[in-house]
């Protein structure tokens, strides 16, 4: 995800509990948080950053329904309508025999569809070359980023607040 140009205040945290406490304080002051970059998922951060629950499960469900419909359409179309044949004395519509393939295609389309949508909405693509605020955010640091231009508070206030709330390192970046 590309960042808009501007001035940013970047604070590094080592432990997730301290990060969460700092986030609460920052939120209390009414400072808008640009984003937080973490090396691993931090539980409880979604509420603090007002991240809504992902609707990807719904996407998976819809793709699953599509997979099931396609599987039934294919099997019934081929075996019952296009070239009906009696195989092993079974009916032209041997529905129990259609269960395995229907199940597999439901799972296949559900998984593939959801993952494709995940890649698209998260802007994940092989040629993406993002610039990180701090490369340590994929190693061991949680990086809290605040865009300065859109705040009421001064730069010094924000930096002081972060420092008091356990930020290990604070720097100022201009993109």
């Amino acid at each position, binding site marked *: *995800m590309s960042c808009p140009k501007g001035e940013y205040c970047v604070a590094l945290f080592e*432990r*997730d*509990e301290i990060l*969460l406490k700092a986030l609460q304080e920052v939120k209390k002051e009414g400072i808008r948080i640009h*984003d*937080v*970059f*973490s*090396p*691993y*998922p*931090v*539980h*409880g*951060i*979604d509420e603090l*950053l007002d*991240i809504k*629950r*992902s609707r*990807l*499960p719904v996407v*998976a469900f819809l793709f699953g329904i599509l997979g099931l419909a396609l599987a039934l359409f294919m099997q019934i179309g*081929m*075996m019952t309508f*296009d*070239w009906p044949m009696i*195989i092993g004395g*079974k009916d032209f519509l*041997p529905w129990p*025999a259609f269960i*395995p*393939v229907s*199940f*597999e295609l439901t*799972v*296949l389309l559900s*998984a*593939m569809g*959801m*993952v494709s949508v*995940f*890649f698209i*909405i*998260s*802007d*994940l*693509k*092989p*040629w*993406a*070359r*993002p610039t*990180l605020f701090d*490369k340590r*955010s*994929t*190693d*061991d640091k949680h990086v809290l980023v605040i865009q300065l231009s859109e705040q009421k508070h001064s730069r010094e206030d924000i930096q002081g607040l972060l420092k008091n709330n356990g930020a290990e390192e604070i720097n100022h970046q201009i993109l």
Partner: protein
Amino acid sequence: MADPSLSIQKPLVTGGKTAHDVTQDVCSQVEKKPTKEWLVGISISLLCLSIGSYALLRTLWDGIGMWGLNRTVGWAWDITNFVWWVGIGHAGTLISAVLLLFRQRWRMSINRAAEAMTIFAVICAAQFPILHMGRPWLGLYWVFPLPNTFGSLWVNFNSPLLWDVFAISTYFSVSLVFWYIGLIPDFATIRDRAKGYISKIFYATLSMGWTGSAKAWSRYESVALILAGLATPLVLSVHTIVSFDFATSIVPGWHTTIFPPYFVAGAIFSGFAMVLTLVVVTRKVYKLEDYITIRHIELMNIIIIITGSIVGIAYLTELFIAWYSGVEYEQYAFLNRATGPYWWAYACMMLCNVVSPQLFWFKKIRTNIASTFILSIVVNIGMWFERFVIIVSSLHRDYLPSSWAMFYPTFYDVGIYLFTLGLFFTCFFLFAKFFPVVNMAEVKSILATNSEKYLKTKNTNKT
């Protein structure tokens, strides 16, 4: 927030590792020059692969007449190997998906290697049905729903062999995606440490521009959970459908309803054995003893006892039902298995699968690396024999005694098996060199060094 359970439970990762240590320990294996052990390992694998390739090419050139099959025994090594490899794959999905749903945190340091194993095992498994088609280039019309040249005569959706095509390809695709999704954040970690030009491009491409923003993690977690939810019934369905290949036939010894659960248990059993074989070596060579601890190995050995016992009960149930059914053919099939010309294969199966895992009831044995390694190989030999016994001993004496025959493997049967072993280990060695063998992001989230308790004890020690 760090999970409160971290302060109560024994730490899963020992040695007081910090998040940075995790990155360092795992990435350094990717970054440094290949070790001597690795070069020796991959050379042996490539040697197996090349010897096996000869057998494979001769089979393609001259046809499957090169194999030891005959009119009575039309399925033997090929399908044995197919079922064996598919079964091995199951442990990877079980570890990453089922244990994720059950919130078993100990899966985290072994799931990456186990999932890699799944993918390579399924690739190996797929070789056998493809080769058994004889002319695989025509097989496109036999396995995929494409109309043939005479019009729109389609594939037969009543056939379990066709269900298998869908099951295996779905299983492969979903496992691959699941594995890859888990790898993305770790590729990003390697990308951000990479020094060389080529490795920078390589890992930047693989990590697809991952930044680790809060929103991305939130979506990532929901994708991982849904994929686990999808993979769990999928893994059960795959071996169920593999067992349908046999169970829907009318061959005595195959035509039983116990097959699906019995095959799934056997698959998990053999898969965990293969995970142990690989993990015991990997942790030693890569010095990952703090991540894959004795406790991990013990827990896996406990799963081996459970699944091994289920398999044992299944064998006994089969025998009982054969007797209780009153069907003469069924009774003969089982009598022939145990006392016929293939009695040694049956004895080997019983010994390796039912007796040997019971040794893990002793804590000393299940917490010992050497005995775990040996028993894991014994179990895999046993599970290979299980499939051989089911397939060959049921076929070689069918309803018509005049067509009774024996199966003798040729060099080409063995050669193609060697080919898949070479393929599997070549892939695994490449994975172990170029990919992070431990899921760094997940392990970092369960570090004991993150917990309040650890910091308190650390601070009191200081003062």
